Protein backbone atom coordinates (compact mmCIF):
# COMPACT_ATOMS: atom_id res chain seq x y z
CA UNK A 1 0.00 0.00 0.00
CA UNK A 2 1.50 3.37 -0.97
CA UNK A 3 1.72 6.46 1.19
CA UNK A 4 -1.18 8.32 -0.41
CA UNK A 5 -3.58 5.45 0.20
CA UNK A 6 -2.45 5.19 3.82
CA UNK A 7 -2.97 8.93 4.27
CA UNK A 8 -6.50 8.75 2.87
CA UNK A 9 -7.36 5.84 5.14
CA UNK A 10 -5.93 7.70 8.15
CA UNK A 11 -8.01 10.77 7.24
CA UNK A 12 -11.07 8.53 7.07
CA UNK A 13 -10.27 7.04 10.49
CA UNK A 14 -9.82 10.49 11.99
CA UNK A 15 -13.14 11.57 10.50
CA UNK A 16 -11.60 14.29 8.33
CA UNK A 17 -13.27 12.83 5.24
CA UNK A 18 -16.45 10.83 4.74
CA UNK A 19 -16.52 7.30 3.32
CA UNK A 20 -17.74 8.63 -0.04
CA UNK A 21 -14.99 11.23 -0.20
CA UNK A 22 -12.37 8.64 0.71
CA UNK A 23 -13.68 6.34 -1.98
CA UNK A 24 -13.49 9.15 -4.57
CA UNK A 25 -9.94 9.94 -3.51
CA UNK A 26 -8.89 6.29 -3.71
CA UNK A 27 -10.39 5.96 -7.18
CA UNK A 28 -8.62 9.14 -8.25
CA UNK A 29 -5.36 7.69 -7.01
CA UNK A 30 -5.73 4.53 -9.05
CA UNK A 31 -3.43 4.67 -12.03
CA UNK A 32 -4.98 4.52 -15.51
CA UNK A 33 -3.32 1.13 -16.06
CA UNK A 34 -5.17 -0.30 -13.09
CA UNK A 35 -8.59 1.05 -14.08
CA UNK A 36 -8.27 0.17 -17.73
CA UNK A 37 -9.37 -3.40 -18.37
CA UNK A 38 -6.35 -5.37 -19.44
CA UNK A 39 -6.20 -6.13 -23.13
CA UNK A 40 -7.25 -9.74 -23.45
CA UNK A 41 -4.48 -11.81 -24.90
CA UNK A 42 -5.55 -14.96 -26.65
CA UNK A 43 -4.99 -17.85 -24.31
CA UNK A 44 -1.86 -19.79 -25.01
CA UNK A 45 -2.63 -23.35 -26.04
CA UNK A 46 0.78 -24.78 -26.76
CA UNK A 47 4.32 -24.39 -25.55
CA UNK A 48 6.58 -24.54 -28.57
CA UNK A 49 10.26 -25.42 -28.45
CA UNK A 50 12.29 -24.99 -31.61
CA UNK A 51 15.95 -25.87 -31.99
CA UNK A 52 17.56 -25.00 -35.30
CA UNK A 53 21.18 -25.17 -36.35
CA UNK A 54 22.97 -21.85 -36.10
CA UNK A 55 25.19 -20.34 -38.77
CA UNK A 56 28.30 -21.88 -37.20
CA UNK A 57 26.74 -25.23 -36.46
CA UNK A 58 27.99 -28.26 -38.34
CA UNK A 59 25.17 -30.43 -37.14
CA UNK A 60 21.96 -30.02 -39.14
CA UNK A 61 19.62 -31.35 -36.48
CA UNK A 62 16.29 -29.62 -36.05
CA UNK A 63 13.91 -30.17 -33.18
CA UNK A 64 10.33 -29.01 -33.14
CA UNK A 65 8.30 -29.82 -30.05
CA UNK A 66 4.79 -28.58 -29.34
CA UNK A 67 3.33 -29.45 -25.96
CA UNK A 68 -0.28 -28.62 -25.09
CA UNK A 69 -0.49 -26.40 -21.99
CA UNK A 70 -3.25 -28.66 -20.66
CA UNK A 71 -0.81 -31.58 -20.80
CA UNK A 72 1.76 -29.55 -18.85
CA UNK A 73 -0.89 -28.81 -16.22
CA UNK A 74 -1.89 -32.47 -16.01
CA UNK A 75 1.73 -33.59 -15.91
CA UNK A 76 2.65 -31.17 -13.14
CA UNK A 77 0.04 -32.74 -10.90
CA UNK A 78 2.26 -35.83 -10.85
CA UNK A 79 4.77 -33.77 -8.90
CA UNK A 80 2.66 -34.57 -5.83
CA UNK A 81 3.95 -38.16 -6.12
CA UNK A 82 7.53 -37.13 -5.48
CA UNK A 83 8.37 -38.57 -2.04
CA UNK A 84 9.29 -36.12 0.69
CA UNK A 85 12.72 -37.62 1.19
CA UNK A 86 13.56 -36.75 -2.42
CA UNK A 87 12.92 -33.03 -1.84
CA UNK A 88 16.38 -32.41 -0.41
CA UNK A 89 18.02 -33.98 -3.49
CA UNK A 90 15.83 -31.82 -5.74
CA UNK A 91 16.70 -28.69 -3.76
CA UNK A 92 20.38 -29.52 -4.02
CA UNK A 93 20.15 -30.11 -7.78
CA UNK A 94 18.26 -26.82 -8.20
CA UNK A 95 20.83 -25.00 -6.07
CA UNK A 96 23.63 -26.35 -8.27
CA UNK A 97 21.83 -24.82 -11.27
CA UNK A 98 21.57 -21.50 -9.44
CA UNK A 99 17.90 -21.81 -8.53
CA UNK A 100 17.45 -21.25 -4.82
CA UNK A 101 13.94 -22.42 -4.09
CA UNK A 102 12.63 -24.87 -1.56
CA UNK A 103 10.77 -27.51 -3.56
CA UNK A 104 8.79 -28.59 -0.48
CA UNK A 105 7.25 -25.11 -0.30
CA UNK A 106 6.05 -25.11 -3.91
CA UNK A 107 2.28 -25.55 -3.77
CA UNK A 108 -0.07 -26.62 -6.59
CA UNK A 109 -1.37 -23.01 -6.55
CA UNK A 110 2.15 -21.72 -7.27
CA UNK A 111 2.48 -24.13 -10.18
CA UNK A 112 -0.94 -23.12 -11.49
CA UNK A 113 0.04 -19.44 -11.34
CA UNK A 114 3.30 -20.21 -13.12
CA UNK A 115 1.52 -22.05 -15.92
CA UNK A 116 -1.12 -19.33 -16.25
CA UNK A 117 1.63 -16.74 -16.74
CA UNK A 118 3.32 -18.79 -19.45
CA UNK A 119 1.44 -16.70 -22.07
CA UNK A 120 4.10 -14.03 -21.90
CA UNK A 121 7.02 -16.43 -22.13
CA UNK A 122 9.42 -16.08 -25.03
CA UNK A 123 12.97 -17.32 -24.80
CA UNK A 124 15.39 -16.92 -27.67
CA UNK A 125 18.96 -18.12 -27.43
CA UNK A 126 21.32 -17.91 -30.35
CA UNK A 127 24.60 -19.68 -29.92
CA UNK A 128 25.87 -22.69 -31.74
CA UNK A 129 22.20 -23.57 -32.21
CA UNK A 130 19.18 -21.30 -32.26
CA UNK A 131 16.73 -22.14 -29.50
CA UNK A 132 13.31 -20.55 -29.31
CA UNK A 133 10.73 -21.29 -26.62
CA UNK A 134 7.42 -19.55 -27.00
CA UNK A 135 3.69 -19.88 -26.65
CA UNK A 136 1.18 -20.10 -29.46
Amino acid at each position, binding site marked *: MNEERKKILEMLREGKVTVEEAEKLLVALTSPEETKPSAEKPACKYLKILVEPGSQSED*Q*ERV*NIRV*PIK*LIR*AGLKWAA*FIPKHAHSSINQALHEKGIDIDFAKVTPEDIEELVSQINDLTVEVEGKDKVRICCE
Partner: protein
Amino acid sequence: MMPMLMRLKVSRNPNGSGVMLPVFFVWILLFALMVILFPFVLIAALFTWRSGQGKWLLLTYPLLVSVLFNLSGLHIEIEHSDENILIAFL
Protein backbone atom coordinates in the same frame (compact mmCIF):
# COMPACT_ATOMS: atom_id res chain seq x y z
CA MET B 1 -10.86 -35.36 -26.02
CA MET B 2 -8.44 -38.22 -26.06
CA PRO B 3 -6.27 -38.59 -29.14
CA MET B 4 -7.60 -41.29 -31.40
CA LEU B 5 -4.72 -41.41 -33.84
CA MET B 6 -0.98 -41.12 -33.62
CA ARG B 7 1.16 -40.11 -36.54
CA LEU B 8 4.49 -41.85 -36.41
CA LYS B 9 7.32 -41.34 -38.82
CA VAL B 10 10.77 -42.80 -38.60
CA SER B 11 12.35 -42.48 -42.00
CA ARG B 12 15.30 -41.16 -43.94
CA ASN B 13 13.04 -39.44 -46.41
CA PRO B 14 12.00 -36.02 -45.08
CA ASN B 15 8.95 -35.96 -47.36
CA GLY B 16 7.56 -39.28 -46.14
CA SER B 17 4.19 -38.98 -44.43
CA GLY B 18 4.68 -41.80 -41.91
CA VAL B 19 1.93 -44.02 -40.60
CA MET B 20 -1.26 -43.29 -38.71
CA LEU B 21 -1.69 -45.56 -35.73
CA PRO B 22 -5.11 -46.03 -34.16
CA VAL B 23 -4.11 -45.40 -30.56
CA PHE B 24 -7.69 -45.74 -29.36
CA PHE B 25 -7.05 -49.50 -29.29
CA VAL B 26 -4.32 -48.85 -26.76
CA TRP B 27 -6.67 -46.71 -24.65
CA ILE B 28 -9.33 -49.46 -24.72
CA LEU B 29 -6.77 -52.01 -23.53
CA LEU B 30 -5.43 -49.61 -20.95
CA PHE B 31 -8.87 -48.82 -19.55
CA ALA B 32 -9.69 -52.53 -19.44
CA LEU B 33 -6.46 -53.09 -17.52
CA MET B 34 -7.27 -50.24 -15.17
CA VAL B 35 -10.71 -51.69 -14.45
CA ILE B 36 -9.23 -55.15 -13.82
CA LEU B 37 -6.57 -53.74 -11.52
CA PHE B 38 -8.92 -51.42 -9.63
CA PRO B 39 -9.92 -53.90 -6.86
CA PHE B 40 -6.24 -54.62 -6.18
CA VAL B 41 -5.42 -50.92 -6.13
CA LEU B 42 -8.30 -50.36 -3.73
CA ILE B 43 -7.04 -53.08 -1.38
CA ALA B 44 -3.49 -51.73 -1.58
CA ALA B 45 -4.82 -48.22 -0.88
CA LEU B 46 -6.70 -49.46 2.18
CA PHE B 47 -3.60 -51.18 3.55
CA THR B 48 -1.36 -48.19 2.94
CA TRP B 49 -3.89 -45.49 3.90
CA ARG B 50 -2.31 -44.89 7.31
CA SER B 51 1.13 -44.29 5.84
CA GLY B 52 -0.41 -41.67 3.55
CA GLN B 53 0.40 -43.48 0.34
CA GLY B 54 -3.07 -44.94 -0.13
CA LYS B 55 -4.44 -41.56 -1.17
CA TRP B 56 -1.78 -41.25 -3.86
CA LEU B 57 -2.51 -44.75 -5.11
CA LEU B 58 -6.14 -43.80 -5.67
CA LEU B 59 -5.13 -40.53 -7.28
CA THR B 60 -3.12 -42.29 -9.99
CA TYR B 61 -6.36 -43.11 -11.81
CA PRO B 62 -7.71 -39.57 -12.31
CA LEU B 63 -4.22 -38.22 -12.94
CA LEU B 64 -3.47 -40.82 -15.59
CA VAL B 65 -6.80 -40.14 -17.27
CA SER B 66 -6.16 -36.38 -17.26
CA VAL B 67 -2.77 -36.88 -18.92
CA LEU B 68 -4.27 -39.17 -21.58
CA PHE B 69 -7.13 -36.75 -22.27
CA ASN B 70 -4.70 -33.89 -22.84
CA LEU B 71 -2.26 -35.68 -25.11
CA SER B 72 -4.06 -34.34 -28.17
CA GLY B 73 -1.87 -31.83 -29.97
CA LEU B 74 1.44 -33.15 -28.69
CA HIS B 75 3.91 -32.92 -31.54
CA ILE B 76 7.53 -34.04 -31.39
CA GLU B 77 9.61 -33.75 -34.52
CA ILE B 78 13.32 -34.35 -34.84
CA GLU B 79 14.98 -33.84 -38.19
CA HIS B 80 18.47 -35.11 -38.60
CA SER B 81 20.61 -35.49 -41.68
CA ASP B 82 20.30 -39.27 -41.36
CA GLU B 83 16.83 -39.73 -40.00
CA ASN B 84 13.56 -37.97 -39.32
CA ILE B 85 11.39 -38.82 -36.36
CA LEU B 86 7.88 -37.53 -35.87
CA ILE B 87 5.42 -38.41 -33.14
CA ALA B 88 2.15 -36.51 -33.16
CA PHE B 89 -1.09 -37.23 -31.35
CA LEU B 90 -4.16 -36.20 -33.33
